[in-house]
């Protein structure tokens, strides 16, 4: 069945989007809304079909991948872009969990969104999101990737602002959209620089295609021209990284992700844990050959990743909203992925993307089940003792919790330790990065333990009447959670170095292996058991600290926002963004009141000169026969005079 066309994969969610969109529009007038059973079935069917297509294609994939070109998109003398798809080991792994987890979350959403007025609209957006994400991952050129990149940005806007009767949600959606747009300018600039390089250096008009880019870079390195194009290539690398910081919520463009928790919880699980935010990491891995040749950019990526991981972990400590803790945790884990990419361990980075998708989606869905059980309560200070009341949810959360803090045997242990190991061996600065990573791991364990203690243990701190309503989530929500929890336990064994399992490394080697070998690492070999022991110790220390530090839960206040110094730390980048916005406002004011006025004056001047001249000319065009006659005679006389005086030369 290798002849299954690649465009089948994005086609299914697209059909789903259109069908559900039609249902949503058609039913918008009716009082009752569409049948939830029909909408839910369609909403899960199409992502599941896409997942099935990916599985079928995966089974018979040749080693070098499948390439297929649908049609030509842009054909200019300096730029040639196709609607082309590339299905190799990297896109296979990404697609498997994008469509797989996407289908599970669609299933979960049927329960979570039950009774919502925008039921069909929600699933239409979810399908559109999956379509965009598949295009992003499956495309064989940067331009089409950018198309998907913008598509997921649009869908995150639609989904974050899904409950748009609340103004705060709309603001959060706007923020996510605008901050992402800032990053997207970087992506565009990077593509422009590459086109410029293709035009002037490689004489190629298809440089935006990944294969062409790869061969261009190989030729440049082999021909020794790499030093000449280095400045331009470095600039392109930095621009692409700016794009990645926007999508993957890295410093400085990270403020949108915590706000994005305004959307429904399945959205947080799908977009802000499993798929969209990892597209930055995916792009780094996709362009690994380019980044491996740019040591400066790699260093920037590592430093930004380390700062982000540490800063977000500390911010996570201060949050009272259960989803905000997970949001900062996601940013922190993305920081890990960027650190790994920065030391050219692209496979470890993608591996962490993969395991993180499972355990973070499980955590978010668990949090969603808790919120569902408590009828919308998100403040952890009003929870407590839920383990007895919602045992399945608690079990799922505990497994995912064990995975994220790195308890041996769980998925996060394998992927995080791998990253720490690669960090340590990355060169002279390695131990420093390793220390930051390990410290972050301790903090991660602290805030995750705090979340678990505050939510599931101790006494229930909510009101008496709400206690009676607490109930376990329905089966369609529990099944995806249990599957994801199983993933949080099991996916780590795809690459358990110390057990001799490295399926994942082998699978990714054809895509990123060459790039990784191109970057020199220190030859120092350290016992992997040492890393495992230190990683485990970090988790245990974190649990112990959290156990003693958060025995006493503070009483709930009205707002879940952290206060005082904690707020300064948490909203540091919001404050910095605020300065930039203020500065932009000042510039905008100047432009509005000075530059604009100048332009308006010039406009007015030109317009009036034209008017006066025009009026003058029009005054000759009077509708009086005799005057017209006299004027034409005068004109003839003048012409004759000119001809006579110049001797008929002109």
């Amino acid at each position, binding site marked *: 069945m290798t002849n299954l066309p690649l465009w089948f994969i994005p086609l299914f969610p697209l059909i789903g989007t259109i069908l559900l969109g039609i249902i949503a529009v058609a039913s918008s007038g009716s009082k009752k809304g569409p049948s939830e059973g029909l909408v839910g079935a369609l909403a899960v069917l199409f992502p599941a079909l896409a997942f099935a297509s990916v599985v079928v294609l995966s089974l018979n994939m040749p080693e070098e991948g499948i390439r297929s070109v649908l049609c030509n998109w842009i054909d200019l003398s300096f730029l040639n872009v196709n609607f082309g798809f590339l299905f190799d080991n990297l896109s296979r792994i990404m697609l498997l969990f994008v469509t797989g987890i996407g289908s599970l979350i669609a299933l979960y959403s049927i329960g979570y969104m039950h009774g919502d007025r925008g039921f069909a609209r929600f699933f239409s957006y979810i399908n559109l999101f999956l379509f965009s994400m598949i295009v992003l991952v499956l495309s064989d050129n940067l331009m089409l990737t950018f198309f998907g990149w913008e598509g997921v940005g649009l869908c995150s806007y639609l989904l974050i602002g899904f409950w748009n009767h609340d103004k705060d949600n709309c603001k959060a959606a706007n923020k996510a959209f605008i901050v992402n747009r800032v990053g997207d300018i970087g992506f565009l600039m990077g593509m422009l620089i590459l086109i410029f390089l293709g035009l002037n250096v490689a004489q190629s008009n298809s440089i935006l295609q990944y294969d062409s880019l790869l061969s261009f870079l190989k030729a440049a390195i082999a021909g020794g021209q790499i030093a000449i194009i280095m400045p331009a290539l470095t600039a392109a690398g930095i621009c692409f990284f700016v794009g990645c910081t926007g999508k993957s919520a890295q410093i400085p463009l990270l403020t949108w992700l915590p706000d994005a928790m305004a959307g429904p919880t399945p959205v947080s699980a799908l977009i802000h844990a499993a798929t969209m935010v990892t597209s930055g990491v995916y792009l780094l891995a996709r362009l690994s050959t380019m980044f491996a040749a740019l040591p400066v950019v790699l260093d920037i990526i590592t430093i930004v990743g380390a700062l982000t991981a540490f800063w977000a972990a500390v911010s996570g400590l201060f949050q009272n909203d259960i989803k905000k803790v997970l949001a900062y945790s996601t940013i922190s884990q993305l920081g890990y992925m960027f650190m790994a990419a920065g030391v050219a361990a692209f496979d470890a980075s993608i591996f962490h993307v993969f395991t993180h998708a499972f355990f973070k989606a499980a955590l978010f869905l668990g949090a969603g089940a808790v919120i569902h059980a408590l009828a919308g309560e998100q403040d952890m200070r009003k929870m407590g003792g839920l383990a007895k009341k919602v045992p399945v949810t608690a079990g799922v959360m505990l497994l995912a919790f064990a995975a994220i803090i790195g308890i041996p045997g769980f998925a996060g242990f394998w992927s995080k330790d791998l990253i720490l190991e690669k960090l340590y061996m990355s060169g002279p600065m390695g131990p420093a990065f390793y220390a930051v990573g390990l410290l972050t791991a301790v903090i991660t364990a602290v805030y995750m333990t705090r979340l678990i203690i505050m939510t599931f243990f101790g006494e229930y701190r909510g009101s008496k009447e709400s206690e009676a309503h607490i109930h376990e989530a329905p089966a369609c929500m529990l099944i995806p959670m249990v599957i994801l929890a199983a993933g949080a336990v099991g996916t780590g064994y795809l690459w358990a170095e110390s057990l001799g399992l490295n399926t994942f490394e082998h699978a990714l080697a054809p895509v990123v292996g060459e790039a990784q070998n191109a970057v020199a690492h220190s030859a120092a070999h350290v016992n992997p058991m040492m890393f495992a022991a230190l990683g485990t110790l970090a988790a245990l220390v974190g649990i112990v600290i959290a156990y003693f530090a958060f025995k006493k839960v503070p009483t709930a206040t009205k707002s879940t926002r952290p206060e005082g110094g904690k707020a300064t730390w948490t909203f540091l980048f919001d404050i910095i963004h605020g300065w930039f916005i203020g500065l932009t406002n000042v510039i905008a004011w100047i432009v509005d009141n000075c530059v604009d006025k100048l332009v308006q004056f010039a406009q007015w001047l030109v317009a009036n000169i034209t008017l006066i001249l025009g009026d003058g000319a029009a005054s000759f065009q*009077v*509708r*009086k*026969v*005799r005057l017209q*006659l*006299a004027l034409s*005679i005068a004109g003839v006389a003048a012409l004759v005079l000119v001809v006579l005086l110049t001797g008929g030369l002109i």
Partner: protein
Amino acid sequence: MELQAMYIQILALVLFTIGLVVAIARRNIFFVLMGVELALNAVNLSMVGFAKTLPAELSAAGQIVPLFTIAVAAAEACVGLALVILIFRNRESVDSDSFTNMKG
């Protein structure tokens, strides 16, 4: 003494100028038409005058073209007078300055 060609041209120029001035200066549309006729005839006279300066066998064209011009001018005058009469019926005025647009 034979008639000098120059005098014929001067007469034609005088007639043409009178015709033009009448056409421009008079407001009565009939006078405008008459001025135009006068100017046309001045041109005819000028042509015949020039034709007379040529040898007899070449001058025929110069004599015939004015005949055509006269025929065409007569036809034009018919159409012009018909138009003027129609305008007069509609507006009860022959003041050309009051006819400033093409609407009826």
